[in-house]
């Protein structure tokens, strides 16, 4: 195993750890917004680490270009999706846990109907 391979292994394992932490966060956090926080932050970090590790593994080739494209597109769209989701949740009256704002319609704060 060469030095590059070793670095790539370390990066990818660290990325896998990030991803796993995000998964645990999504399962264990108390409410939607903290879950979203756990998911989106670790997503970006894990994505960056895994993709960089794969790039080192790929070397100069066409797959390297595709990996860069995947990285760029996900780095752009993943936070946007998180924003869109948080926005949709907030607009339709789904306040963060602990916030009691009477101006926000509280219909379906719990249960299926948001």
């Amino acid at each position, binding site marked *: 195993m060469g030095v590059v391979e070793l670095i790539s292994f370390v990066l990818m394992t660290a990325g896998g750890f990030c991803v796993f932490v995000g998964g645990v966060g999504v399962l264990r956090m108390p409410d939607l917004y903290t879950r979203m926080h756990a998911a989106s932050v670790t997503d970006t970090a894990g994505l960056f680490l895994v993709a960089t590790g794969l790039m080192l593994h790929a070397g100069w080739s066409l797959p390297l270009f595709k990996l860069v494209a995947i990285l760029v*597109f996900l780095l*752009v*769209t993943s936070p*946007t999706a998180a*924003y*869109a989701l948080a*926005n949709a949740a907030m607009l339709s009256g789904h306040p963060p846990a602990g916030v009691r704002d009477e101006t926000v319609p509280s219909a379906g704060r719990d249960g*299926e109907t948001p």
Partner: protein
Amino acid sequence: MTLVFGVFLLTLLVIVAVAIVRSTNLFAAVMLSGIFSLLMAVNFFLLDAADVALTEAAVGAGVATVLFLSALALTAEHEQVRPGGAALQWLPLVVAFATGGLLIYATFQNPVIGDPNAPVHQHVAPWYLENTPELIDIPNVVTAVLGSFRGFDTLGEVFVVFTAGIGVLSILGLRHTLVEMTSAEIDARQRSLRHHLIPRVVGRGMVPFILLFALYVQFHGEYSPGGGFQAGAIAAAAIILYSLLEGDDRGRALVPEWLLQIMVASGALLFGGVGVVCMLLGGSFLDYSVLAEVPSEGQHLGLLLIELGVGITVSGVLLTVFHAFARRASR
């Protein structure tokens, strides 16, 4: 090791399927079927079916979710809960279990997964794999079989897609009388994501790249996973994204309906037309060898044209369906 990954993912697949059937909220069921489709694609990939996985990706990630959501917007979001609640119904359960049990019993006769001596791998498949380099001369055997060896089949499938598009149009109406242009305009603005700045900027930036990728999948389909079906779905997804962001009216301005109708018809016509041209040049129907001096070059040309026809029809039909549902919602 891939086998273990496959077993794990297939187990997840079953769990998701049970959850879909159990949930009384249809929106939740649609979201879960999004996960179902993703898992399906990963499983296809692990089973060495890259083309199929790409198709599932193109269809399941964009178009299917959007269609189900727009149908939900037009119907109801919840299943009605009846007295007796979400209890299992015994007769269907018995029927389903009997069928499932019978099938599992039958599987013990099956050759194991990956057995190279299984009957499936004995009959025509080796012939396709052996003769593709010589007769068609492209690396992707799936495209070769799809377009050339079994081109007749594919023509039929394209016409099924075409017919489904016509069916949706005739059920949901080709035109509808606009109530008032101004209120429709306000309506579209309210429905679109036009005032969401971040998704709008990012999404509009993505649209050209998705279209570019669709073109890559379309014209690189002979050398890598891809082809007309996938490219059509991806291109439709790009336009659907634009319509979601900018409002249905602007989406229709970008790709007008008359153009869509021409696309739906002309793609199928192109496919059939290539076949007829082959006949006029002295070959049999869909035998592309006669299209050029060298038979394999004729095959290349024929595949290029019919894949183009497939792509045009598929994207046309999917967009037509999307617009038919979206317009229904805005009246």
